[in-house]
């Protein structure tokens, strides 16, 4: 085996071992990690699955373990610009690809997908191979293949066919190669060959647009628009953007965004103590995630609503699995919208089981974790990790006879100066959610003591989650956080100083036009800056991300 670049150096340089790490700076107030601008973004698991369904049909099974996506400053979309593929990960992509391709050659699929075979006019199948490679290559690589690429694909097919003794085997092997190619697994921006300098070409634009709006690769119409140059003209771009936003598939894109924004995929790993919260189960967890996503799309897309109303809405998507958690009858087995009556304490997504259960311990609540999560995701603020030598014994003792409620136990945080600096920010919010237990179930008392849910958010007082939701509704920080997050999601990178004017514009537009999510996305998609190549960095600039693993605080 020849000497390769040592893996140590690679690992250090890339800063990622393929695991899900929360990168965060060490001190509050410091900006997000500086990730070098990238023109290479790896497909996430969800995107991979969507693409396969779009290209080959939803009946094709995609089975295997995907390389975990990396979250950078809260978004896997940003992390996609930081990750590569490890040997183990590639092994999995290869296995997944072989399983997909095997299905494509099954008799019921072959005609539709492959559609040709060696015959009298094409004895070795070279023409068929060229056709398949070209056609499928366009959809998989998201651009037309170069002549050399097609030739190489044909040669490989014939060569493999010879070794295996059958054409289909050879063609299948080539397709597996395409599904493991970096051209498929990574979205790589190509500079435009003509037009203004520093922009990406039409196909790269189509890719950016498609993943932002629908979380999948460009469909035939969009590819055609790229081919014709329509995307390079403002009216052509606008036509496609409007088409895609008007489509029902935009809801999929919105779901993908909010799923990333609210970090809901962590629910897959959520477990609760079965004796303390017997109503909670893995299907309840999955239903809670779905509930939040459906509540959001119902409001923001079906009703074209105001983003801020997410924090006050009484219309919750509901299904039978969640009935016991919310203690309500659920008439239909599927999904429907349940409206809590006026005066009910449950209003806004802050009262939904997904966020409340996700940011709590298996057997008790955690105002600190909830406050931290809300500050970091919904307010885009940074909360640093606790110091190493903290004594958690008092907080963890839920049966303390004098300190009956969580609030009382946490008061210790606020007495200590060093602790108070962060905990005022987190606990102040989290304690207002204490009427919801660790599984998101509502209660008025803890150990027979009524729970005090008063608090202050940005110097304004509130009593309970409905109040808090109203304050979030009115807070410019909340809407600004959404704006910057959508921008980061679409661009796959953090905001730098030179991006600020664009962000400011977006904020102004968002506020002026009713805080509509669809309009915000539209504006970003139409901004020429969205299609700019990464600006060259001066030599010596930071090329690694400073990564601190954030441990789950035990408070």
């Amino acid at each position, binding site marked *: 085996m020849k000497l390769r670049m040592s893996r140590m150096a690679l690992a250090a340089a890339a800063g990622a071992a393929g*695991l899900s790490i929360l990168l965060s700076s060490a001190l509050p107030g410091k900006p997000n990690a500086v990730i070098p601008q990238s023109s290479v973004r790896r497909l996430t698991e969800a995107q991979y699955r969507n693409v396969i369904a779009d290209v080959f049909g939803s009946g094709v099974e995609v089975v295997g*373990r995907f390389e975990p996506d990396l979250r950078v400053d809260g978004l896997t979309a940003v992390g996609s610009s930081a990750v590569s*593929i490890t040997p183990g990960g590639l092994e999995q992509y290869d296995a997944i690809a072989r399983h997909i391709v095997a299905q494509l050659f099954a008799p019921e699929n072959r005609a539709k997908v492959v559609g040709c075979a060696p015959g009298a006019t094409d004895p070795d199948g070279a023409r068929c191979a060229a056709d398949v490679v070209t056609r499928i290559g366009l959809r998989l690589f998201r651009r037309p293949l170069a002549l050399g690429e097609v030739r190489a694909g044909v040669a*490989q097919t014939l060569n493999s066919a010879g*070794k295996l003794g059958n054409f289909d085997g050879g063609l299948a092997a080539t397709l597996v190669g395409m599904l493991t190619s*970096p051209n498929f697994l990574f979205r790589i921006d190509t500079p435009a060959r003509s037009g203004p300098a520093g922009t990406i070409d039409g196909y790269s634009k189509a890719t950016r647009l498609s993943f932002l709006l629908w979380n999948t690769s460009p469909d035939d119409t969009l590819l055609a628009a790229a081919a014709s140059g329509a995307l390079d003209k403002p009216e052509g771009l606008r036509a496609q953007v409007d088409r895609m936003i008007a489509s029902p598939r935009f809801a999929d894109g919105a779901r993908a965004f909010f799923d990333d924004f609210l970090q809901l995929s962590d629910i897959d790993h959520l477990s609760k103590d079965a004796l*303390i919260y017997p109503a909670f189960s893995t299907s309840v967890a999955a239903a809670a995630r779905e509930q939040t996503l459906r509540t959001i799309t119902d409001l923001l897309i079906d009703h074209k609503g105001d983003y801020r109303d997410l924090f006050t809405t009484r219309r919750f998507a509901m299904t039978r699995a969640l009935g016991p958690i919310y203690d309500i009858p659920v008439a239909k087995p599927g999904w429907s919208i349940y409206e809590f009556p006026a005066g009910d304490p449950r209003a806004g997504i802050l009262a939904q089981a997904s966020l409340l259960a996700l940011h709590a311990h*298996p057997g008790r609540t955690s105002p600190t974790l909830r406050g931290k999560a809300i500050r970091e995701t919904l307010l885009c603020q940074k909360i640093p990790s606790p110091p190493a030598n903290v004594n958690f014994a008092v907080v963890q003792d*839920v049966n303390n006879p004098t300190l009956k409620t969580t609030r009382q136990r946490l008061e210790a945080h606020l007495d200590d100066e060093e602790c108070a600096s962060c905990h005022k920010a987190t606990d102040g919010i989290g304690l207002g959610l204490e009427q919801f237990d660790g599984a998101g179930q509502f209660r008025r008392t803890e150990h027979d003591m009524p729970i005090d849910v008063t608090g202050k958010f940005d110097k304004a007082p509130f009593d309970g989650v409905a109040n808090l939701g109203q304050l979030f509704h009115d807070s410019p920080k909340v809407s600004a956080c959404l704006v910057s997050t959508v921008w980061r999601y679409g661009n796959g990178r953090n905001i730098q100083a030179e991006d600020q004017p664009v962000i400011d514009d977006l904020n102004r537009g968002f506020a002026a036009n009713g805080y509509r999510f669809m309009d915000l996305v539209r504006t970003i998609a139409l901004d020429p800056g969205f299609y700019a190549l*990464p600006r060259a960095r001066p030599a010596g600039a930071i090329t690694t991300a400073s990564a601190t693993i954030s441990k789950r605080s035990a408070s």
Partner: protein
Amino acid sequence: MKDRISRRGFILRGVLGGAAVTVGIPILDAFLDENGAAFAATLGGGSLPVRFGTWFWGCGMIPERWVPQKAGANYDLPPQLEPIRAVQQHVSVLSGFDVMLDGKANLPHISGNTGVRTGEAVDTWQAIKAPTFDILISDAIGSGSYFRALDLSLDGNPQTSYSFRNGSSINASVPSPVELYEKVFGADFHDPNKADFKPDPKFMVRKSVLSGVAEQRRALLAKVGSADRIRLDQYFTSVREMEDKLALQLQKPPPAEACVRPNAPVPIKGDITDIGVRKANHKLMTQLLGMALACNQTRVFNMNFDTAAAELRRAGDTTGYHQSTHEELVDRSLGYQPTVDRFAVGSMEAWADFVQTLGDIKEGAGTLLDNLLVVAHSEVSFAKNHDVAGIPVMLAGRAGGRVKPGLHVKGSGEPISRIGLTAQQIMGVPVDSWGGGAMRSNRSVSEILV
């Protein structure tokens, strides 16, 4: 050395001693073994193959006397688990995993097994949808050996089998040691150490396809900035590693060093329904099985100690095991059914014997157990009610280093299909979710994974 960031920091664990279920992040490292040993079952070449088997016993156990209190390593051994003391380090206990009936009937002595083996409960034989998970595993890894799988029964009945592709076609079992010997070591014995090796063209093709991918490197790197270059280069390094692994497959595998063709066995005399005779028969069959594995005659087996409605009895007793489970009264002073208890203990003694016997076969730097995963299970927990909740499961072996033995994992009512899913994933079946209805799951039992 890669940064080995501990995944423990991401597992939420119940701190208050309740029956918590822990699930970790997707375990990437199962596939990241630096020595390539983790790929043995799928890519083979250069390492010992990893084998898989099931071991079945009927009529479950008495939960209060079988389920350990402590979770994790060094679990306590309640009275019915006492027999495994000598092999405890090799055995993991998985308790509290349920077959969820999903509103379907609990067909006595049928639903439990179907639920465990196919991951879904059904009302009728015709409705059984999927192959049992041992078949899915042998489909994936069985083609590398002479016999795709060996199905074995110890009661002399070839119909005692829980391995099937669908409800209407159940694989018949080899019902005695003598027949097993004839089948494997008889006149047609396929000696692995004499085989001619021909490289499989499939691997040649895959390797050359990867080379084609690697050729795209230069063109791609030219298109991107320096930080992206480093990331793409990491990808291409992964490609080269895969090429190297495929190259190994094109070389002749190492000799099966532990393989010694055994002598024909002397059949055990006596009433095969008597538990003492059954255990002797079982030991003999296990020795033959072990050698069949060491000689790479098969990579998958199913061993059935008795049937679901266990027909075992003890010479001199008027009621047998199954009958006792329903008819014997709970002894007031003991607090349990004594005859049922004795048979449950006897079943566990047989299991311990099984593990011990396979562990006595040296292989590589260790024993056969190091390159094996066995899933032992019953079809009910408390047989009296045909209770399919908390069906007892035990694992043995290290699966080529992918599995940590010697743990007690509490399932807390989780679907038992998670175990079938985990076994398939360990053995390299490309599956990310398995089971049907309420038992459909995509969570492996990560506690046992290395």
